[in-house]
């Protein structure tokens, strides 16, 4: 008799794995690798999505100090 893959554990693991993967992609911005976007981490973490040159410049200055 041929062994079947049990559906329940398989689907549960698939659900959990893909959910963790989604969380990983969103929190680490995995997408940035293929968009080629390379933010300066420090400036990005300090100024976030505020498109303010002054904020980024000052963060970069602090970083290079």
């Amino acid at each position, binding site marked *: 008799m041929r062994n079947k893959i*049990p*559906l*329940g*554990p398989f*689907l*549960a693991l*698939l*659900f959990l794995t*893909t*959910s963790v993967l*989604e*969380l990983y992609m*969103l*929190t*680490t*911005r*995995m*997408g*940035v*690798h*293929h*968009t*080629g*976007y390379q*933010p300066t981490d420090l400036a990005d*973490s300090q*100024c*976030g*999505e*505020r*498109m303010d*040159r002054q*904020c*980024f*410049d000052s963060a970069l200055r602090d970083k290079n100090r």
Partner: protein
Amino acid sequence: MVNAWTGSVLIARYGTRTDESALRWKNVFSVNLLIALLAIIVGVWYAGSALVQVFREIPEINNYSDILPGKREFVRRFLHGETVYVPVQFDSYALQLTFLPFRWLPFVIAEMMKFDYRWIPFAGFIVGILCWIFSNSIIGSKSAYWETALKIFLPFVALNMFVVHEGINFALAVELLILGYHFILARFLFHKNPWVVGLSLVLCLLSRYSIILWLAVPAFWLILEKRHVFLGKVMLITIGGIFLFYLLPFCRHDLGKHFLTATQYYIDACRGCWNVDTWLPPGSLPNLIGKGEGFQYWSYVFGPTDVDARYRLNNNLGLLICTATVIISCWVLYRHIKTKNDPIAIQGLLFGSLKVYMMFFIGFILCPFSYLFIVPFFMLLPLFYSISFKSAFLNQPRQSV
């Protein structure tokens, strides 16, 4: 997409009902409840301590964003009996008010009790989880203790990851509050009382209102089930709620014209996100689009040469795909109801459809701020809570509804 689909199938085979008829109140005070409450306390401490760190680094009063200052001004006007919905003047621009009442009304509590506004969204998240704890899926079902503990604690682990990786989203934005409303809606979507369903809908519609198009799916389900009277009551209560909480108190001065002006302002402001920022080298991708969290990147890179045309392409694609998601969900519902009509499978289908819809809606949103992606991710939770993992791992499909 894959987790939404597997989640729906898992609910159909190994799921538990969320609606009240399945909850036996004598089962409420159980070891599972104790474990769930302990898990939420540990979770609040775990995610809360990461938030404390972020709030210390970024003070509540800052000039990074107009989200919280805007809300502070609405609350001040509201408490002083002034007209709330007139533009808020900042240094270089006047902010048109796109924030509907439930995005700022809860902050009145923080203002009156004099604590940091940013704890309100976290409280919204906790209330959403608490609503799920007191459901058949968590305490009503005979789930294993480890399963209950993990189901309650893991969302806080996920939240902690978001906070650690991009704390600024929680220091400046209030997305967890909107997420809390969506948890409440999903929790009570199958409630037998039209008031509970209607008021849960009002919370979502008077906050982010992203779900407005998706509501066609549960409405179609009720029509197929021939529950026309129930649907009518829910619609009336929802419209009544919008009238009572928004139109009557806040729209009398201009008959709601501010909403249309603010919508146009929002569309124009979002177009700015598609320009390359001045601090980036020439030829770069615009900051928010380059992050690659949504689908905007594809329209930007592979769309027409004109940026306006790329922007329109993304908007049209978003509308088309969201509409297609709704139509396909309705079709699958129709097929299922004509053949099996299993309430738990329908629950899985609606939660799966909501997850996919939210992912596309935010995925194609005009300006993809990172914090917007928190809600679509956490729309996994209704699926996660409805699955009995103990049954799934033991491969024991449920016997009856």
